[in-house]
C-alpha cells in the first residue's frame, strides 16, 4: 500500500512542475464565469416565460385579463406578447412560448350577461413550470369572475346598460352604489367580524434562496474544471504509456491498482484544494450561498474523482493515444454542454435540462447546488453516495483489468 502514496506523490510533483496546465484548467472556467456574469449581470435568476395573448374582444374586461399577468411578481416571470390568433396558434405549436391565450370576440358581453363564455388556453408541453403558473393564474381569474358575477352581477349590468329613460345619470350611480352597499352589508354579517380566530405564527422560511447568475453557475463551472482534470489525467496515463514507464512498472512487484489509486488520490487532493478555494471564493466574491460548505467540498471532491475515473475508463479503452484524446473530447464536451457546466439547467430548454440532470456531472452539480443552498434531501444524497461508491468500485476494477490486460505492455 506504500506504493499508493509514492505514486500519488509522483503525480503531485507533476502538478507542481507543470503549473501552467493546472492554471489553464482553472482559468478557463473562471474566464467563462466572468464572461457570463458580465453578460447576464448580477441580477436574480428567474425563469421567464412568454404568454402569447390574442385579444379579439378588445374590451376593458378583456384587457384586465391581460394586465393580470403583468402585475407584481408574476410580471417578472411572464412576458405578455399580444399576437393575432393564427400567429399565436402557429407559434405555440412550434414551442415558441409558454402558453397561448385566446379571448374571443363577445367574451365581455357574455360574461356581463351571465351567459356561457369561453377562453382558449394552449400550453407548451415542453415546459413544465411556467405553463402551469399561467393556467393556475387564469383559473383564479375565472373563479374570481364567477364570484363577482354572483355577488354584484346585476349592478355591473346596470352600470354597463346606463341610466333608464327619465332617470338622471347621477341618480343612476347613486342607486347602483346603494345596491352594492346593501350587498356588502349582508356579506359583512358573514365575514366581519371573522368567525374564526386566527393565531399568527412566524415559521422559518424554508424556501430555496435565489442566487445571482455567477453563483448559480459556480457548481457547473467547478465541474468544468473536474472534466478538464479528468481529461488531463487520462492524457497523462497515455503519455506514461508512450514513454515506456508503464512497461517498466509492469516488471516491478508494484500492483497496477496502486498506480491507479495513486493517480486518483493525487487528482482528489488537487480537487479538494480547488473546490475548497472555489466554493469559499464563490461565497466571498459572487455572494454564493455557503450552507454546508464542508459537505459541498467533500461531495464535489468525491463525485469529481468518480467523473475523472469515468473519463479514464473510456479513454483507456481506446486503441491509441490519439484516439484516446478524441474519445476524451467526445465525452467531455457533451458532458460539459448538457451537464450544466456551460449553462445552468434553469436556462436550458426543458428537454435538454432533463437529459443533463441524468449525466454523471449533471447529477453531481444538482446535488452540489442543493447542498450549497441548504435544500439537499439527505435520503437522496445518501442514495447517490452509495451509487458513487458502487460505480467507483466497478470502474476501478475495469480500469485495473485494462491495465493488466495489455495496456501496460
Amino acid at each position, binding site marked *: 500500500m*506504500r506504493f499508493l502514496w*509514492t505514486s500519488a*506523490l509522483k503525480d503531485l510533483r*507533476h502538478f507542481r512542475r507543470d503549473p501552467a496546465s493546472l492554471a489553464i484548467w482553472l482559468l478557463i472556467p473562471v474566464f467563462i464565469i466572468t464572461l457570463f456574469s458580465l453578460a447576464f449581470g448580477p441580477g436574480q435568476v428567474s425563469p421567464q416565460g412568454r404568454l402569447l395573448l390574442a385579444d379579439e374582444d378588445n374590451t376593458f374586461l378583456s384587457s384586465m385579463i391581460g394586465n393580470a399577468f403583468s402585475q407584481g411578481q408574476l410580471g417578472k416571470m411572464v412576458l405578455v406578447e399580444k399576437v393575432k390568433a393564427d400567429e399565436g396558434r402557429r407559434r405555440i405549436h412550434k414551442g415558441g412560448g409558454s402558453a397561448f391565450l385566446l379571448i374571443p370576440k363577445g367574451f365581455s358581453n357574455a360574461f356581463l350577461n351571465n351567459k356561457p363564455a369561453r377562453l382558449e388556453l394552449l400550453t407548451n408541453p415542453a415546459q413544465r413550470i411556467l405553463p402551469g403558473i399561467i393556467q393556475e393564474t387564469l383559473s383564479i381569474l375565472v373563479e374570481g369572475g364567477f364570484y363577482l358575477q354572483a355577488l354584484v352581477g346585476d349592478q355591473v349590468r346596470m352600470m354597463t346598460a346606463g341610466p333608464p329613460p327619465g332617470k338622471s345619470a347621477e341618480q343612476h350611480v347613486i342607486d347602483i352604489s346603494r345596491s352594492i352597499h346593501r350587498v356588502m352589508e349582508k356579506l359583512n354579517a358573514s365575514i366581519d367580524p371573522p368567525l374564526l380566530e386566527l393565531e399568527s405564527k412566524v415559521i422559518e422560511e424554508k424556501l430555496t434562496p435565489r442566487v445571482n447568475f455567477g453563483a448559480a453557475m459556480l457548481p457547473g463551472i467547478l465541474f468544468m474544471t473536474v472534466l478538464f482534470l479528468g481529461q488531463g489525467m487520462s492524457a497523462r496515463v497515455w503519455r506514461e504509456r508512450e514513454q*515506456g*514507464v508503464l*512497461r517498466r512498472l*509492469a*516488471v516491478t512487484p*508494484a500492483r497496477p491498482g496502486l498506480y491507479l489509486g495513486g493517480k486518483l488520490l493525487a487528482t482528489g487532493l488537487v480537487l479538494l484544494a480547488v473546490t475548497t478555494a472555489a466554493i469559499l471564493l464563490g461565497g466571498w466574491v459572487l455572494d454564493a450561498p455557503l450552507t454546508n460548505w464542508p459537505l459541498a467540498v467533500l461531495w464535489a471532491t468525491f463525485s469529481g474523482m468518480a467523473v475523472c475515473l469515468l473519463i479514464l475508463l473510456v479513454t483507456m479503452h481506446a486503441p491509441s493515444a490519439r484516439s484516446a484524446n478524441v474519445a476524451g473530447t467526445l465525452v467531455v464536451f457533451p458532458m460539459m454542454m448538457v451537464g450544466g457546466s456551460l449553462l445552468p439547467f434553469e436556462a436550458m430548454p426543458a428537454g435538454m435540462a432533463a437529459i443533463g440532470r441524468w449525466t454523471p456531472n449533471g447529477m453531481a452539480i444538482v446535488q452540489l447546488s442543493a447542498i450549497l443552498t441548504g435544500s439537499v434531501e439527505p435520503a437522496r444524497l445518501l442514495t447517490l453516495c452509495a451509487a458513487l461508491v458502487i460505480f467507483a468500485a466497478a470502474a476501478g476494477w475495469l480500469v485495473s483489468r485494462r491495465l493488466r490486460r495489455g495496456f501496460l505492455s
Partner: protein
Amino acid sequence: MIELEQLRKSFGDLTAVDGVSFTAQPGELFGLLGPNGAGKTTTIGCISGLLTPTAGRVRVAGHDVVRDGIAARRAIGVVPQEIALYEDLSAMENLDYWGGAQGMRKPALRARSLEVLDLTGLADRASEPVKRFSGGMKRRLNFACGILHQPKVLLLDEPTVGVDPQSRVRLLELIRAQARAGACVLYTTHYMEEAESLCDRLAIIDHGKIIAQGTLEELRSLLGERDLLRLTGVFRPEAVRVALAAMNRVEIVQAEEHQISLAVAGATSRLPEIFAALAAAGAEIRGTTLTQPSLESLFIKLTGKELRE
C-alpha cells in the same frame, strides 16, 4: 540465475521467439545478440514477466515467472531499451519512485539512491529535472533505476543505444561491476564489439531462434580461425562456385550476383590466387573487404547477413 526451456512466444500468426533455451548463472554476463527484430526484446519481455510465454518455461532466481510472478519480479532489475523515466521529475525523484515500486523504504532507499547516483556520475545533478539531461545522462539514470534495488538478475535491453562514447564506457564498466557483485546479467545488443568485450557467454539469435551459443572462444572456433573476405562487383554465382571449389580452405559463405563472401584461412596471402580464379570465372571485382575472425564474421557465416541489416 536465468533458465529458459524451449521458450516460444507468438503474436497471432507471427512467432517472435521459437524454442529458445539457455541458462545464465549468477555472476555471469550473458549476451544475447541478434539484428533488429530477431526476438531479443520479446525474450527479455518473457523473462521479466511483461509478456506471457506461449509455450516453454522461464525461471528467474528459482521462481517461475508465470506461476510465481511477483517473487520473480522482486529478483529482477530491468533496464529497458527506451528511456523509461519521468522527464519533469528530478533524478532523485525518479529514483524515489522506482525504488518505491520495488518496495524499498525511505531511509535505505535514500542511501541507495545517493550511492547509485554517485556510481553513475549524476550525484551533482540529483535535484535537476531529467528533461535537462543529455542523452547519455538519461541512459545512465535509466540504468541507475534498474540496479537501485540490487537485483539478483539484471536484464539489459540494448542499454547503450544512442549513447556517447564516454557514457558508453562508463555504462559498460557499471555492468561489469554488477556481474562482479554476483548479479546474473543478460545483455542484449546488436553491437558486436560490445558483446565481444563484455560478455562471458553469448547466444546468437535470428528469426526467434538461437543459432549458436557458447563462450567467445567456442563461437570463434566455429569459424575455424578463418578471415572473412567480402567482394563486391559482378559475379556469376555458379561459375564462382566451380572456380573456388578446387581451392584449399576456401569456403563460400554467400554467393550472389553482386556480392560474394568467403571464409578463407590466411586470406591476405591468398588474395592474388582468389582474384585470378574469380577473373577466370568471368567475375568483375569492384570492392574488397577483409575481416578478421569475429562475432560479426561468425554472424555473417551463420545467417548470411550482417548484424545491422
